[in-house]
């Protein structure tokens, strides 16, 4: 069965089309003011990649913070359910899913059947979310994509005290003034964020395998910090930011429960 998952996040809208558990196409659009047209844009991209037309899609499920804004769907699942479905499908050994979105971090514990048994959400604090690294990259005057690789060249741990993303900016500036090397600051940024995420994840109990999803999973500097904190290897899928949408599509197809 061909199904679609639509993930309406705070920053981006993602669409995944799957058939029998195989990803056929994916599309993305920035969340703007007109959700319907943004969804269409992402959907068109996904259909194009899959080489399909809309009428071939049998079922559509929505997920994400804005899932209630999606019209014409068959059902919707929360991010927690969709993340778990997607991650467990990609890595069946997953017991802990960590999803870091632009404004929110989540840790989800799943059993051997992929069923959610516990979850924790870090909300109302950007220090545990993707927005944090964006702000820090700006303060360091380093492109976001280079922040991770830069931090990997550091071997020195510098503590960062500020928790608020914006105050952390001024702490970064003061570290620059103290002539701390940029790569060490970059690592400090990732360490601070990783500590926040680890703290949250420990609430559900971190059991291997851990699967990291969300856009931040593409940042090797952060992944490195998190692996150090959790003292274990972390699994990262190919398109970590599309896992929620993929999960919703799988739920629509009845492949995941």
């Amino acid at each position, binding site marked *: 069965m061909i199904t679609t998952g639509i993930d309406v996040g705070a920053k981006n809208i993602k669409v995944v089309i799957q058939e029998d558990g195989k990803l056929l196409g994916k599309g993305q659009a920035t969340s703007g003011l007109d959700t319907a047209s943004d969804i269409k844009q992402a959907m068109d991209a996904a259909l194009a990649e899959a080489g399909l037309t809309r009428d071939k899609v049998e079922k559509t499920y929505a997920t994400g913070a804005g899932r209630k804004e999606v019209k014409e769907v068959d059902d919707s699942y929360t991010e927690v359910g969709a993340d778990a479905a997607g991650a467990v499908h990609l890595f069946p050994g997953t017991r802990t899913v960590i999803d870091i979105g632009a404004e929110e971090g989540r840790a989800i514990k799943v059993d051997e059947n992929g069923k959610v048994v516990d979850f924790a959400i870090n909300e109302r604090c950007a220090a545990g979310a993707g927005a944090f690294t964006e702000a820090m990259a700006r303060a360091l005057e380093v492109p976001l994509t280079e922040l991770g690789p830069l931090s990997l060249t550091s071997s020195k741990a510098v*503590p960062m*005290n*500020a928790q608020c993303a914006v*105050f952390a900016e*001024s*702490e970064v500036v*003061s570290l620059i003034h103290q002539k701390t090397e940029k790569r060490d600051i970059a690592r400090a940024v990732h360490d*601070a964020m990783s*500590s*926040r995420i*680890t*703290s*949250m994840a*420990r*609430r559900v*109990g971190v059991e291997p395998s851990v699967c990291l999803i969300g856009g931040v999973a593409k940042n090797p500097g952060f992944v490195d910090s998190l692996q150090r*904190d959790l003292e274990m290897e972390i699994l990262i899928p190919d398109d970590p930011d599309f896992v929620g949408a993929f999960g919703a599509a799988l739920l629509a197809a009845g492949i995941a429960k």
Partner: protein
Amino acid sequence: MIEMFQEWYDNRHEYAKHWKAKTGGKVLGYFCTYVPEEICYAAGVLPVRILGSHESQDVTEPHIFAMYCPFCRDCLAQGLAGRFDYLDGITIAQSCLHIRQAYTSWDLHIPVEWSYYLPMPHNVQSPRAVPYLVEELKSFKKSMEEWTGKKITDDDLRRGIEIVNRDRQLMKQVYELRKREEPPLSGLESMYMVVSSQTTDKQEHARIVEDSLKELENRTLGRPVGQRLMILGSEDDDHEFVQMVESCGSTFVIDDHCTGTRYFWDQVSLDGGDPLTAIATRYVNRVPCPTKDWPVRTRLPHILDLAREWDASGAVILQQKFCDPHELDIPAIKSALEEQGLITLFLELDVTVPIGQFKTRVEAFLEIMQEEDLF
């Protein structure tokens, strides 16, 4: 000589492990300064206070809801990190809810031979408190005897009282010297002295304090004293913070902290009577933690006296973030100090303090006291 205290502060775990290896005795971790150390010394047990390390940590979130004070979370983090793995027992005297959670989570997750909750009365202004505490101290003593397998005699108790009293009395002599126009030691050094007395054998500590007193007789700071400050509020052993304030042109000359005067100010007066009654009387009548300071705020006149006698011109009022008992006293204390002509600065401590942000405030606060030369 005086450098010894910092060494002990920095290496408290090594000290305790070494003590244990040397004496073969038991080490007891305690969570609040209402724990009667006299009885521990009487039993030959070394009481050491459990304190935090002021490093950010990510292990307490599953155990303590983040709205409880950073101090209790920092303490528990030390236990979860295994830094106190040499402890044979833990104990707490009933005080605030926050630190109690560090104790109960420790009790649940970090195995020790002996764990004891001492229901220290809160209504210390009631005549009923001493008789009640005497009974509780009897139970405490009995349980400790069962644990150590050793009977604690009245003579043992008297010896315990003498050991603890001796150190208290010497510490008070050190504090007397801080009244001088040129105090012979900084607030930081003094903090190291008090905190190390909570984590070392008091007999050894007292010997070094005694020697230090001679050294301090003719010592000066080797820098201008600057503004004379008082520091008061909840638990504070953040050396980085104290050092920062003193590096901005000031010296702490007196404090009201449970890592300072509140800990050692009052003696047990024995007068040949029943030692447990004497101990109970001391803990009921000591300078109280705010959680026990009701219905009358007895701490208030005491703080004002300290500020006057040590001639402080400003006060840094500190509080562990979320510490309710202190939060409920601070507005009253602040306005009383200000009425007495002191300038005050209020700051909230977290596990780690944002030194940069705090420095601006501290400097501005000191400028209020001294910026006459700018006009």
